[in-house]
């Protein structure tokens, strides 16, 4: 076998993977190993593959990903804390030909924005919701979130979350899956390459659903927050696999079309 030099491998014709052009050249402000970077990349790749860069409008939340508009080169709108689904509803209704998605964390979506997300999903708004769940308020310093696991220590629950004091962790994906307006509800992760590929497929499917007008697509991505959890990125992934996946099981929770109106109108006919 003839030996080949590294310089001969690194050539344009041998390229198999490079950063997508939909991502800007701005250096992400996220901590090393943050799952946000991977999910941003997947959203950008799906937008590039579908060729919808000019037709996509994102709604960024309040939280670490508030600066998402700096990194993905599409049109963006910034919503008040938790109100991204409401803003996305307005954009999609006014411009039905556009692809609209919200990108929210668990402090934004599950806590202050719980009403907005439940009602947007219940109305079956034709939008994509990407929900990053790292069980913590990452940006503000690792406080307890609605999704914090029982016994998990955070800045505001240093002895761990206790059920009698703080209540139970919320499984937003399971709650949303019961609503008739949603068409595709799934929980994914990005801790290894296989999981990243699955998550990308799910995001692609969500955007295809929006194209077909099927209803709300809701993708939860179980993520890490190495700074908030006070571990290194590799350990954070191990911790997530060990503790979060048993409580937040991965997989599709729902995959259909939103319920037809006739199913509900029959109750009024008597």
């Amino acid at each position, binding site marked *: 076998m003839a030996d*080949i030099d590294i310089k001969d*491998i*690194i050539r344009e014709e041998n*390229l*198999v993977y490079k950063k997508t052009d939909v991502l800007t050249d701005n250096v*992400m402000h996220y901590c*090393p190993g943050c799952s946000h970077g991977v999910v941003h990349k997947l959203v950008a790749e799906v937008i590039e593959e579908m060729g919808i860069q000019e037709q996509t409008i994102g709604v960024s939340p309040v939280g670490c990903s508030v600066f998402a508009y700096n990194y993905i080169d599409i049109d963006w709108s910034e919503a008040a804390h938790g109100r991204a689904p409401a803003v996305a509803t307005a954009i999609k209704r006014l411009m039905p030909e556009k692809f609209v998605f919200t990108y929210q964390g668990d402090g934004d979506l599950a806590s202050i924005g719980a009403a907005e997300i439940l009602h947007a999903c219940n109305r079956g708004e034709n939008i994509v919701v990407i929900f990053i769940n790292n069980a913590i308020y990452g940006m503000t310093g690792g406080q307890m979130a609605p999704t914090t696991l029982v016994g998990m220590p955070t800045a505001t629950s240093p002895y761990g979350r206790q059920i009698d004091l703080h209540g139970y962790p919320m499984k937003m994906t399971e709650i949303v899956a019961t609503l008739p307006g949603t068409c595709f509800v799934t929980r994914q992760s990005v801790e290894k*390459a296989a999981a990243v590929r699955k998550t990308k497929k799910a995001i692609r499917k969500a955007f295809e659903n929006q194209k077909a007008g099927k209803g709300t697509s809701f993708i939860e991505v179980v993520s890490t927050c190495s700074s908030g959890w006070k571990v290194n990125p*590799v350990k954070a992934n191990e911790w997530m696999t060990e503790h979060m996946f048993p409580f937040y099981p991965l997989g599709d929770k729902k995959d259909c079309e939103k319920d037809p109106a006739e199913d509900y109108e029959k109750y009024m006919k008597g």
Partner: protein
Amino acid sequence: MAKVRGAIVVDNELCKGCGLCVVACPTNTIAQAKEVNGKGYNYAYMENPEACIGCANCALVCPDSVITVYKVKVS
């Protein structure tokens, strides 16, 4: 028999040294450098260039999209 050889190019200055690519690599090609970049991070580099098969797993899990992957078949 055809053999696959790969290579990665890491943008040293943008790498944040999180080490996720090191764990994701199935052939132990990648390691973190002892030197640091301008931001003080131990950037990733190809420690065993011969072992790389160009599977792009490292680039997929890289949160900052600093890895470019090349692959070629050699006979």
